[in-house]
């Protein structure tokens, strides 16, 4: 038989010789390493090819490249800016203005959307039929309409309804609403003003301390301390005390109609207001569903157990349900924050000077350096998004279930 003869023909290994080593290709770890090396090499080669090809084509067509343009004079005006900016400033400064405007909208949007989302999410679960139905209609209508459409609605619908500056709607003689925005008085601090924010900071720090001490005392002795009312009193009272002691070192610059527009004071431009409105209302509808899902994910037994040891419904929600629901809520909430930040780039459609409008729009067009400008813009959004993810992941770790 062939098989036996085959076996027989093999020489038995001599006791001195080392056992024959299997080929390295039979080692799955080695194979994986080789293939990964080849893939990595391929990806690197491809990247080099892309860069080279771009450079060669730019050069062939005589298109300027490099980042020197950031120091050139911008020459264009920007409607609203958090830092001083003038036409003589550089493109780099204009970039900063756009970045800050984007961050402003994102931060306001995230805070408001979270608040509104939580309220609607809880309302959706309300036992009151009317409230839960209103919340449902809101969620279903808003999240199913394109954001850009809503943005245009808020911008043009609101703009058309408002009067011109000369026929402004006055509120208490010092606030003015018109189609150029909402003008409010600007606080102008005097010499001793610094004491008030310092007092506020002290109050906030102290309130953390109070909360911790109260918790420890409750853990040890079971005695409760009215933390919330004490802290609210402190946070309002301390700065107020400082203000009284220094004799209210603040006066107001009131907006007044001069020429075409209101001068002085602070004007919230309609672009900012409608962008924040649209982003908040849109994102809140998604957050509401996330909150509802989170709360529903906590089993009913938890509530019943809490009631059975005599906890009040409010306390049950705060101490039992929300902490467990948060574990389900936080990861998808992070995506909504990222979405909101990225959606803020729709600002360009309604003339809010965000990063995309100023940098990827005006600057790109005036300098023509598309590759650099778009590269920087993408890097900025990536950085913002990764930062949000990072902080939310840290928060998520803290809230995650700790097994004891």
């Amino acid at each position, binding site marked *: 038989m062939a098989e036996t003869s085959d076996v027989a023909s093999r020489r038995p290994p001599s006791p001195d010789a080392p056992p024959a080593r299997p080929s390295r290709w039979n080692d799955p770890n080695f*194979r994986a390493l080789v293939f990964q090396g080849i893939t990595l090499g391929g990806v690197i080669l491809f990247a080099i090819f892309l860069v080279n090809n771009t450079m060669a084509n730019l050069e062939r*067509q005589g298109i300027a490249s490099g980042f020197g343009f950031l120091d050139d004079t911008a020459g264009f005006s920007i409607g609203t800016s958090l830092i001083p900016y003038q036409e003589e400033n550089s493109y780099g400064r204009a970039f900063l203005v756009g970045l800050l405007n984007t961050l402003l909208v994102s931060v306001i949007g995230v805070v408001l959307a979270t608040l509104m989302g939580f309220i609607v999410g809880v309302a959706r679960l309300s036992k009151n039929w009317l409230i839960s139905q209103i919340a449902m209609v809101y969620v279903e209508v808003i999240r199913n309409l394109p954001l850009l459409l809503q943005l245009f609605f808020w911008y043009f619908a609101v703009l058309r309804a408002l009067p011109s500056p000369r026929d402004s709607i006055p509120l208490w003689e010092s606030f003015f609403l018109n189609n150029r925005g909402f003008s409010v008085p600007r606080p102008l601090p005097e010499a001793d003003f610094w004491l008030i924010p310092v007092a506020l900071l002290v109050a906030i720090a102290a309130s953390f301390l109070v909360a911790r001490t109260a918790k420890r005392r409750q853990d040890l002795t079971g005695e409760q301390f009215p933390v919330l009312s004490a802290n609210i009193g402190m946070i309002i009272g301390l700065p107020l005390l400082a203000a009284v002691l220094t004799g209210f070192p603040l006066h107001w610059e009131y907006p007044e109609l001069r020429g075409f527009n209101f001068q002085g004071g602070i004007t919230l431009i309609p672009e900012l207001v409608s962008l924040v409105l649209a982003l908040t209302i849109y994102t809140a509808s998604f957050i509401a569903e996330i909150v509802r899902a989170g709360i529903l994910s906590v089993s009913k037994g938890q509530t019943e157990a809490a009631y059975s040891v005599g906890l009040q419904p409010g306390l049950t929600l705060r101490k039992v349900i929300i902490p467990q629901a948060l574990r389900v809520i936080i990861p998808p909430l992070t995506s909504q924050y990222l979405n909101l930040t990225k959606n803020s780039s729709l600002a360009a459609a309604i003339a809010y000077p965000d990063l995309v409008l100023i940098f990827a729009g005006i600057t790109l067009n005036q300098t023509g350096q598309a590759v650099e400008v778009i590269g920087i813009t993408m890097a900025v959004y990536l950085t913002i998004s990764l930062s949000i993810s990072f902080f939310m992941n840290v928060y998520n770790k803290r809230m995650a279930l700790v097994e004891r």
Partner: protein
Amino acid sequence: MKNAIGIAASSSLLLLASTTLVSAQTLDAVKEKDFIQCGVSQGLPGFSNPDEDGNWSGIDVDFCRGVAAAVFGDPDKVKYTPLSAKERFTALQSGEVDVLSRNTTWTLTRDSALGLNFAGVNYYDGQGFMVRTDLGVNSALELNGASVCTNIGTTTELNLADYFRANDMDYELVAFEKADEVVAAYDAGRCDVYTTDQSGLAAQRLKLTEPDAHKVLPEVISKEPLGPVVRHGDDQWLDIVKWTLYAMIEAEELGVNSANVEQMKAESDNPSIKRLLGTEGEMGEALGLPNQWAYNVIAQVGNYGEIYERNVGIETPLGLERGLNALWKDGGLMYAMPIR
């Protein structure tokens, strides 16, 4: 694993292919695909504007039709790409369009650092301001503190900044990406002033709810020579586009129009007309085109004067005088280099 090998193999193949850079001549590419891709505006009456059926018309559109007539002898072999002011140069640079005919101002930066070539000027314009009549403003110098609506990515916003700075005036800028939104915001009262090229003001005014309640201020604050643009690095295509424009202007100067071109070709003894219409000399061949090229342009699209009057002239809703756009011998700036 198979996937990984595939990626590695295809990327090395790409690397090999990359040694041959893309440098196809535009004329050959255009002939190959049998149409010209023309970058136009997103809707500016008189310059490039689609009607209800999606047919484009306007001075810039007729120019593209002229180039198609010169290359193919058929003005309809054009496809249009509507571009915002912001997108237009990238679209041309990347080869998405073959020629950009989109009321674009000729400036040094655009001609050099952007890697573009301007083929000439088909409309001499200047920037102006439009305001509501009931505002009671009679001069641009009275606009201190006003809110101004305009388009981003244009020379307009730079001129605006320069003008207000030079006259020591403040303003609030409200800049949109699309022209339609600028008009809508101005119409809704977001701004006191709408600024763009004078021809643009005349055109966009037609879109306002009450065109008669607005007026254009007398000041013209800039020079805006608008013309067709092509990419750097293809001289032949630049020549074709440039001489198509000159042929239109030259035809008007020689009195050749779409109505009489047939007769002129048969009967005229004027050597200039004979060279233009291809009965004498080899002008078309020098450009890489059939000798009939200019004849086709004039017969199928018309001379410059006809194009002007048809689209923006006194008889149209825009009602613009020839002004700077009259022939040089009539006191304007339109001047064609000699075709010989």
